[in-house]
């Protein structure tokens, strides 16, 4: 039987939705018993949110001052102690999990499986390589612990309504002080989170300036959508980096994705190919984005977008 430890991602207050998606992936393994561990300085609220997730057997909390911010070099040695007796350790393939999980694997002396997009069996998985241009089936040795990250866009969040037991654990591990959190500059807004929003509106370089991006925000607000951008728009400085959608930014799977003034570079398409419906609005009828769009509209975005906003 598989016993899976899922590392919770959170910001100190709220459980990140990536955790529910990682649990959902873990639950695809037959007969899996899934525990979630929360490392925090104060874990009670977050643990409560994790305990509500379907498929979770129990929630462990490790409360230490050093766990206030997620520092990989601090968390990894604690996970190594805690994962004794587990067959799998999973984390989300977000910047949190990608930073942390390879450290866990290396300390355990095993290789890691990155970006699980499909579970074939307890030790066999599919993952994207070459920016999603190829899908690779891999098999981990059965006599070793499996350390993996989960491509969150491939999984719906595990439902809530569960009330798994929560217990506090002490972990005896020596923690380094060589890495210190200084600050986090976050462009947090009231809009839905890009990675979990059901609807996303993205703008590209054709917007021309950060002032012009205003029309994207207006449309998004009318739809109740999150806002993203192409790499070109981020590199041009129209919007901050955390809004970037694509292989080197965020990989998302909303029900509705509206790409505005985005030509559709491969690396951008990699980030949206699991979206339900893709709408493209672009001046250039030959733009590659139309090759993958379910609904295309060729024309001037500066007249189309305000008109669309008014029509909704």
């Amino acid at each position, binding site marked *: 039987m598989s016993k899976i430890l899922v590392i919770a991602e959170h910001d100190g207050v709220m459980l990140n939705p990536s955790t529910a998606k990682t649990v959902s992936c873990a639950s695809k393994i037959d007969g899996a018993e899934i525990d979630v561990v929360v490392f925090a300085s104060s874990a009670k609220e977050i643990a409560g949110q994790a305990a509500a997730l379907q498929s979770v057997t129990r929630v462990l909390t490790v409360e230490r001052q050093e766990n206030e911010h997620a520092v990989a070099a601090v968390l990894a040695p604690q996970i190594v102690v805690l994962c004794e007796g587990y067959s799998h350790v999973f984390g989300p393939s977000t910047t949190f999990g*990608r930073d942390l999980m390879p450290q866990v694997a*290396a300390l355990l002396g095993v290789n890691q499986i990155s970006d699980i997009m499909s579970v074939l069996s307890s030790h066999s998985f599919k993952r994207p390589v070459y920016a999603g241009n190829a899908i690779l089936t891999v098999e*981990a040795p059965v006599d070793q612990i499996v350390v993996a990250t989960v491509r969150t866009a491939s999984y719906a969040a595990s439902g809530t309504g569960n009330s798994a037991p929560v217990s506090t654990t002490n972990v005896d591990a020596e923690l380094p002080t060589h*890495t210190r*959190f200084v600050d986090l500059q976050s462009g*947090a807004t009231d809009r839905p989170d890009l990675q979990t929003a059901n609807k996303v509106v993205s703008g590209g370089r054709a917007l021309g300036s950060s002032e012009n991006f205003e029309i994207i925000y207006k449309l998004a607000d009318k739809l109740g959508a999150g806002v993203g951008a192409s790499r070109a728009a981020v590199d041009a400085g129209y919007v901050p980096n955390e809004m970037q959608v694509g292989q080197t930014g965020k990989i998302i799977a909303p029900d509705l994705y509206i790409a505005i003034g985005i030509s559709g570079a491969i690396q951008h398409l990699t980030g949206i190919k699991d979206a339900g419906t893709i709408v493209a609005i672009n001046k250039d009828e030959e733009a590659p984005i139309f090759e993958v769009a379910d609904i295309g509209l060729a024309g001037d975005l500066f007249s189309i977008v305000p008109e669309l906003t008014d029509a909704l």
Partner: protein
Amino acid sequence: MEKILVGLKRVVDYNVRVRVKSDGSGVETDGVKMSINPFDEIALEEALRMKERGDASEVIVVSIGATEAQQQLRTGLAMGADRAILIESSGELDPLRVARIFKALVDREDADLVLLGKQAIDDDNNQMGQMLAAIWGRPQATFASRIELNGNTARVTREVDAGLETNEIDLPGVITVDLRLNEPRYVKLPDIMKAKKKPMDVIPLAELDVEGGPAIRELTYEAPATRERGIMVDDVAGLVAALKDRGLI
């Protein structure tokens, strides 16, 4: 700071449209253009700028793989690295083994900083730098978009999902870089000529005596499911109708 080690991986050029082989054994690499992994090029550029500012005295580029990787190391030397090391190996190497090879080189060279791309664009693993930091027992700062050296510490701004996070790390350590850290320089012809005279050590992998981790077996490669081209609408009214049809608004 004395020495910076920079990893340069030879990968299929980022402009190449990758195709899966019909027998599922891998992707087509015959006659395909190979280049330095783009993230690694950014790492090298940053190391060279550190040296030019007087923050480091030597930049060493390292590659692990087939003899052909010497081409990428020569490019690195032409960009301005002082010398190159190729750990020659014909077979596929797992990330943990690559990390252990880097650890052996860090010890041999007594390196102060290892600068790496955040991931290679072929296997997209995003593991090696973190693994190296873990087995070295030294700090890591991943996804760097800004690096400020202050003597024995570095302040690194990291591109994380929530925004820009700044960490301070003690040196020596490992920093993996993201796209927006810098724009790598172009190589000029005279530099290519000069690079031919720069030293390149070729060390057979067997000489290092580094074991790999338990292998993750690669079973098959397949092409991803493709999306079908949909419909074109003529105007906003058509778009709104199509969205309503699908129950999206």
